[in-house]
């Protein structure tokens, strides 16, 4: 516990020193103390929290849509051999399209507001979820399926009692990946097309030459990403406490 804290302290001191001594020009990077005190300042500012709220709004809506579409579709495609073979190539082609390539399209169709942000976040986070769900369904232990079948469980019931529970660890990983992706796309949308949120504030601070604020907001964005990551990991552990992958030593 001491080593990590010490490392963070050393890093902050280094940051402060590098700027104070003049290795990096203060016009490029403000000292750590200035950025951090500005961050505290921001915490007391309503505008900051409304920007955080806007970013989270885009993140949540995008991720929600991706889950609502990706998981059921993944279950369907994964459990049908024919559907999987037929759709494999289209999926493999669409999946690597960088969702940011669709920014211009989103602006044309949805304008510069929340809708564009949600569309981009949903599109980007849909694919990891879909792929993870398909893999999860295909990885179901055949013995479990056969056992269920010999006990006379119907198709739907097998799906619900065998396939879905075995695919849940994959889906949980998919949600964790997608959550990070959705946040990235929300911030990108704010930065590039100027939808309200932290990304836009960062850009505004930069073009206004307000470096303390810019660095404070970048740190805040990092903290937000870190907290969301922590939250999804904790959620995963809670839901999957029965699964072998979670039983090991927790780091």
């Amino acid at each position, binding site marked *: 516990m001491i080593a990590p804290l010490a490392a963070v302290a050393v890093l902050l001191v280094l940051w402060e020193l590098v700027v104070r001594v003049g290795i990096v020009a203060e016009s490029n990077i403000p000292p750590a103390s200035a950025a951090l005190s500005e961050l505290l300042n921001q915490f007391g500012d309503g505008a900051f929290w409304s920007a955080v709220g806007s970013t989270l709004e885009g993140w949540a809506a995008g991720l929600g849509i991706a889950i609502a579409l990706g998981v059921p579709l993944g279950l369907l495609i994964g459990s049908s051999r024919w559907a999987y073979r037929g*759709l494999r190539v289209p999926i493999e082609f669409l999946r690597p399209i960088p969702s940011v*390539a669709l920014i211009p399209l989103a602006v044309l169709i949805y304008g510069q507001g929340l809708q564009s942000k949600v569309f981009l976040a949903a599109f980007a986070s849909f694919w990891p979820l879909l792929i993870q769900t398909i893999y999860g369904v295909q990885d179901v232990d055949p013995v479990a399926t056969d056992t269920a079948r010999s006990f006379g469980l119907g198709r739907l019931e097998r799906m619900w009692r065998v396939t879905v529970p075995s695919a849940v660890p994959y889906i949980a990983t998919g949600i964790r990946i997608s959550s990070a992706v959705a946040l990235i796309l929300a911030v990108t949308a704010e930065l*590039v097309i100027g939808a309200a949120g932290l990304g836009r504030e960062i850009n505004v601070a*930069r073009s206004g030459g307000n470096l303390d604020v810019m660095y404070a*907001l970048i740190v805040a964005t990092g903290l937000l990403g870190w907290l969301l990551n922590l939250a999804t990991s904790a959620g995963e552990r809670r839901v999957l406490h029965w699964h072998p992958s979670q039983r090991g030593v927790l780091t």
Partner: protein
Amino acid sequence: MRPRTRRIAELAVEIAVPAVIIIALFAWTAGKPTFYFPPLSDVFERFANTWVFERFGSDAWPSLRRMGIGYALAVVIAIAAGTALGSSPLLRRATAPVVEFLRSIPPPALIPFAIVVIGIGDGMKVFIIAFVCLWPVLLNTIDGINGIDPTLKDTARVYGISGRDKLLRITLPAASPQIFAGMRLSLSLALILMVISEMVASTNGIGFFVLQSQRSFAIPEMWSGILLLGILGYLFNLVFMIIERHVLAWHRGARASSLG
């Protein structure tokens, strides 16, 4: 169905469904073209005119070069740093919070920082691409080295293998499946960051071209750029998989986990 018939039928489905989708798109966009969704034939025509080869040198090549340099830098630095961190638990514990924080920053948020510190030239884009691609490779290298079978390590010690030999013949090969997993993740990130960095501040590049086309309402051109990015993403993934399969041919896991 007999297995042979079934295999042929499956292959037929795999070819037929995408073909039907493309034909349907053709018919749909040709039937009632709207401003935002021009006929697919127009998009293909613009694609041929734009990217073969008029703008390839002026926009596609600078993009690909920046992406290549950034990605290569990230992989080299990440494997080196990952090896150091993976071999020292103390170092790893000490740096964990810093690594966790830095990799949680949504990468676009760093673009303003890079613009202020480095400027808006190629250096900024290479920095952003490298910075973002670093983390998946770094974390996977650390995990891979951590997860090396203790028997393997003990055997190496018994045979007195150490130093460079140990690194090149035991540590890195044993961790390579995970390192490759990280590199594959980073590859798609590199493409994404290439586009974002060009959209925010650039005077050339595919991302710049796509955004510029949209702003001047050159919709078929915009679609042709999106199409190019899709093709690039698909090709990168394909080439990487071929290389991975070749390099990791010895690794059974690589076969077991590759589906169908």
